[in-house]
């Protein structure tokens, strides 16, 4: 691969940066309809966090309902709508937009030394589909919320209220947004890296975004097809899924999970990327197994396409089909295990600094691994036949989605907040946030595992009147209130820091990826001069592998040692 072009090209005199792509001055063009990837990334974050609050409140409604088993807080019909909307909003309006649109947009172009994404206008369009989709989705409450669960299995979804149509359109829209973002990111990463940044010199977050972009670009249109068919069937009576007209409900399950299983990886791979940035920075050590972490992301993305039917073991899938899906699902644990062990080896012997970002990364290692292991349980057909549709599954996926993706989002917020705003968050409040979140998270979702194994079904507005079930549900509910309250600490911290926080400077953590080499917040053009890259970014203790950096103090002609040296080996 030709890394650095050696020909000297003369730049035409009119081709001055500001002439081609000047920074807009009007408020609307600068903050509302901006084409700057950093502004769009922040827009994604704000919108995503707003929906996070709404979807989180829905979760609290669920937990209030389950404080008692007499179904008196909400009627079962309302309850069905609430958990459906909670799941749909968390997946499509919170986690996916935050990890791809939010962090991907803000961080990825900075990390590869690019000035923007490949297609800034497309990026603008992708973003604006997101709030529209979110408003449509929550608007469903006004006309009767969809009530068949976030998976909307027919025939129940065919009989659902009008809001189900809103749901279809909203998810279709966010799907298009996600596809376009995927295309945009792939082209950006493949075509716009700084000179010398070969694929294996990219930061691991960029690898994660590349794998994720491929998944969202390919899988999401399959969901679009499934949604289009559901919409056509609901509105025009076109028979795809209704068995009384010759359709097949199982067809929906195939089409839905062909997208929605890869969607699990769309939600977790960027979080893997965030963890891979945070751990070496705060352990002051090169990341262990760079290439294995990078390639295992790709492996997860590839295998992720071939495991969807493990959601359907109880749906009457042919037995000869079940076995390969079980084996392939268990195979996913191998690349994931490679990552977990590499991260642990990164921590090993490091000089660990327990900042909030690092704590969330370590918390991620614990909770995500736990959720991953229960995932292997569920992949085993005999266990799944027993545990399918119980709270065991609910516990499992909250460990990977909250203990994985959301912890990753928290880690990323603490880590990149100084870069985004130029100010530091309060560390002590951050520590409180972590410990409250970590403890209440486990108290909320751990009891669900044994509740599920005892047979408590998910998506039911009440449960068995036994002392045990009532006790553990109350533990989960009360912990979930603490969990919600602990998140307020984060929001308070963000608001405080935005006005009063200490100035961060370019590189408060002593990190080594490219985004920390420019001022915080980064200038409109990111890099006045695009640096050349000589090595992977994680070699703590060595000089920085960049030449021609445009530092806040002026251009650095030679590599500088901005990070403290690595501790001496013991």
């Amino acid at each position, binding site marked *: 691969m030709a890394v*650095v072009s050696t020909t000297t090209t003369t730049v035409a005199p009119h081709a001055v940066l500001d002439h081609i792509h000047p920074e807009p001055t009007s408020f609307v063009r600068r903050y509302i309809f901006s084409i700057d990837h950093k502004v769009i990334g922040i827009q994604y974050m704000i919108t995503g966090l707003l929906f996070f609050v709404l979807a989180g409140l829905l979760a609290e409604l669920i937990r209030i309902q389950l404080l008692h088993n007499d179904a008196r807080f909400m009627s079962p019909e309302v309850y069905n709508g609430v958990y459906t909307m909670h799941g749909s909003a968390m997946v499509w309006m919170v986690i996916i937009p935050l990890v791809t649109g939010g962090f991907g947009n803000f961080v990825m172009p900075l990390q590869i030394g690019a000035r923007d994404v490949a297609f800034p206008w497309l990026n603008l369009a992708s973003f604006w589909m997101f709030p529209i989709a979110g408003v449509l989705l929550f608007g469903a409450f006004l006309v009767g919320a969809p009530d068949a669960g976030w998976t909307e299995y027919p025939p129940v979804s065919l009989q659902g209220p009008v809001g189900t149509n809103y749901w279809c359109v909203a998810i279709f829209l966010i799907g298009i947004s996600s596809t376009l973002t995927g295309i945009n990111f792939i082209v950006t990463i493949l*075509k716009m890296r700084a*000179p010398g940044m070969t694929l294996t010199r990219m930061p691991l977050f960029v690898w994660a975004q590349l794998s994720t972009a491929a998944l969202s*670009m390919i899988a999401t249109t399959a969901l679009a097809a499934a949604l289009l068919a559901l919409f056509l069937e609901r509105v025009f009576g076109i028979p795809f899924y209704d068995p009384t007209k010759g359709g097949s409900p199982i067809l929906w399950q195939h089409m839905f999970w062909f997208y929605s299983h890869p969607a699990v990886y769309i939600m977790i791979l960027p979080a893997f990327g965030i963890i891979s940035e945070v751990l070496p920075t705060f352990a002051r050590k090169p990341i262990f197994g760079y290439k294995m972490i990078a390639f295992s992301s790709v492996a997860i993305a590839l295998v992720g396409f071939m495991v969807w039917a493990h959601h359907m073991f109880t749906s009457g899938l042919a037995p000869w089909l079940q076995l390969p899906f079980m084996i392939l699902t268990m195979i996913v644990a191998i690349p994931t295990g490679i990552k977990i062990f590499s991260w642990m080896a990164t921590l090993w012997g490091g000089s660990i600094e327990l900042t909030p970002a690092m704590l969330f990364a370590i918390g991620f290692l614990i909770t995500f691994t736990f959720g991953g292991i229960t995932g292997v349980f569920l992949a085993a057909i005999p266990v799944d036949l027993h545990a399918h549709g119980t709270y065991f599954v609910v516990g499992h996926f909250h460990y990977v989605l909250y203990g994985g993706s959301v912890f990753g989002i928290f880690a990323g917020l603490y880590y990149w907040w100084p870069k985004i705003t130029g100010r530091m968050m309060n560390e002590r409040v951050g520590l409180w946030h972590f410990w409250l979140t970590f403890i209440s998270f486990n108290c909320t979702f751990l009891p669900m595992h044994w509740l599920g194994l005892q047979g408590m079904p998910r998506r039911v507005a009440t449960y068995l009147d036994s002392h045990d079930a009532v006790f553990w549900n109350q533990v989960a509910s009360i912990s979930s209130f603490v969990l919600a309250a602990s998140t307020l600490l984060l929001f308070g911290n963000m608001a405080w820091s935005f006005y009063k926080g200490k100035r961060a400077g370019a590189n408060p953590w002593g990190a080594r990826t490219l985004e920390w080499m420019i001022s915080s917040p980064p200038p409109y053009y990111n890099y006045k*001069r*695009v640096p050349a890259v000589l090595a992977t970014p994680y070699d703590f203790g060595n000089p920085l592998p960049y030449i021609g950096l445009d530092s806040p103090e002026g251009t650095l*002609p030679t590599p500088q040692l901005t990070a403290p040296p690595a501790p001496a080996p013991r």
Partner: protein
Amino acid sequence: MSVSVAKQGHVRGAAGNSLVHDEVIYQETRDMRLLGFALFLVSDVVLFSAFIFAYLYLRNTVDTWPPVVDGKQLPRLDVAFAAVNSCVLFGSGVTMHTALENWKHGKKAAFNIWIWATIVLGTLFLCGQGYEYAHAQIGGWSGSIFGASFFTLTGMHGFHVLVGVIYLIVLFLQTRKGVYDETHYFGLTAGTLYWHFVDVIWVALFFLFYLF
């Protein structure tokens, strides 16, 4: 990897030791757009593939195809007419290719003829499709899984052809306004790629609905 934006800058390279980039311009290059457009087509292929999967899946759930609806055996589709109509569409692929080749060689008059030939053939195909819709005796869109899969898939394809025809007209107007020249004609490349993509999808649909 080929030329990228970041690499177009001023590089004092291997000879000297300072790899300093003086000015790098932000712009979308042709190969970025081409890759982006190709990826868009890939995701569109997945959209069709998902519906084709649905069609094959539903087809597999019944004993006979076309299915029996309310005790009545639905007829097969008319292959002869569809074959002629297919030739119209495939022919338009040839004319579009010719149009692009003429543009590359600066033959504007020939380009105008061939792109209009493509637009006319595409419109003819759509009319043929409309005729076929009016005369298909398979119980309508909502009548059975046959109607559902046939009308949805070919309808989606028809919609793509319609978008293509409109896009080609826009491209023609753009060439009149002087948007493209002999070396910069990405829009025309994209239009041609899109048109071939629509052709290829039709090959699959023709096989699956009429011959299979």
